[in-house]
């Protein structure tokens, strides 16, 4: 597992209060991990904070799974 993936999963576990083994690449924040729309906004903010980057709203709309977040951050994060 990449360093980015590990950091993403740690944030998801903390913010959504879910078990670490449920946070798989394919897990959808809303459908599988119990997040609501406000939770996903806060998750994106936490990713921005952790990785020191900005995730524009139109990009955030396409981050629906853990894997989506990892992929975006590996490509765009300055601190990745």
């Amino acid at each position, binding site marked *: 597992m990449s360093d980015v993936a590990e950091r993403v999963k740690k944030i998801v576990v903390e913010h*959504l*209060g879910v078990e670490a083994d449920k946070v798989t690449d394919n897990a959808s924040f809303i459908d599988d991990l119990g997040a609501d729309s*406000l939770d996903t906004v*806060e998750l994106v*903010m936490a990713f*921005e*904070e952790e990785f020191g980057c900005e995730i524009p709203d139109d990009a955030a709309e396409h981050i629906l799974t853990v894997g989506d977040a990892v992929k975006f951050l590996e490509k765009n994060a300055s601190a990745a």
Partner: protein
Amino acid sequence: MRRVVITGLGLVTPVGCGVEASWSNLLAGQSGARRIEEFEVSDITCQIANFIPRGATSEGKFNPDDWMEPKEQRKVDDFIIYAVAAADQAIADSGLKFDTSDAQERAGVLIGSGIGGLSGIADTSILLKEKGPRRVSPFFIPGRLINLAGGYVSIKHHLRGPNNAVVTACATGTHAIGDAARIIALDDADVMVAGGTESPICRIAMAGFAACRALSTGFNDDPTRGSRPYDKDRDGFVMGEGAGIVILESYEHAKARGAKIYAEVIGYGMSADAYHITAPAEDGDGGYRCMKAALARAGVAPSEIDYVNAHGTSTPMGDEIELKAVERLFGNSAGKLAMSSTKSAIGHLLGAAGAVEAIFSVLAIRDNVAPPTLNLDNPSVETAIDLVPHKAQKRDINTALSNSFGFGGTNASLVLRRVA
């Protein structure tokens, strides 16, 4: 109008989490006051407050994890968690189940708070200044709004009837119970979860209340002696935190299910001083008319009141004004009256105060005991009323009056009576 009774109680106070823990510690003369260590107070004139004891629920202390999931706790200010904890206790105590759509739709919530999520607003303001708007959480607004205490309670217990919140500063809890009782009396609901909650102990609130010259400043090295209503050395109130929630129910509804009935809400009075934003009117007329209205609604004479839970915040002006208003109302029957201020033990819980004190009044009726006014060493004025100094008193208490007066000159009183 339908009769309204109290069938469940819940408390989170500086002398305990849980009704029996809070009540037994209150009767034992315990105080919740201590020096503030959670944030910088060296530059603030008042450095003491009454904190909820944190620890195991089984030991009568407060463990937030027993009432709300940690991931939810992060989203809200403490006043919401306190309300959820007290509401859970009260609902469990009542034995009510909200498992049919009819039961859910006929049950509502009316929980108020004086200032809501002030500490979260202060923290987020700093965050906004330092890191900009993109770091402001989507939970910032919903986690600070006063009516979200009731919102969380309604969601957790599926209460789909009337949902309202009162904001009348230090009279909030009393207004919430009185207004909720009227919702049942008018047949808009059968059950109401009602009360007040507050988590005001933070740097900005201490600075603000200190600036109003409302807080005690002379007991920073002796915190438990700071709240001393009616005593000649009193010099302001000591802040407290917590929540009090009652289950109100129509008498018929409670009877039909064989519920334990603590007391009936027989009177509710309201008035305004229309005088000053923070100071009470010196003639005490607002408080007098408020109590009088509550007694008139109850249809009882002053001589029938056995116990008054006073607003009595321990401010130099307020205590004597209230005392004189009570003497004026009770006249010759003042001599057989017991009146205490439980703020001497738990401090001033602002928007939660009236609800917590209504519950103490209910328990005074249940157990025939008047809780004490701590630290009342030398009363500042002579009175025929027994102010219950230092120690709780066994007395016959069938009918009690609970007063709350708030900034803005708002007043509220409840009359509660044992159901024979």
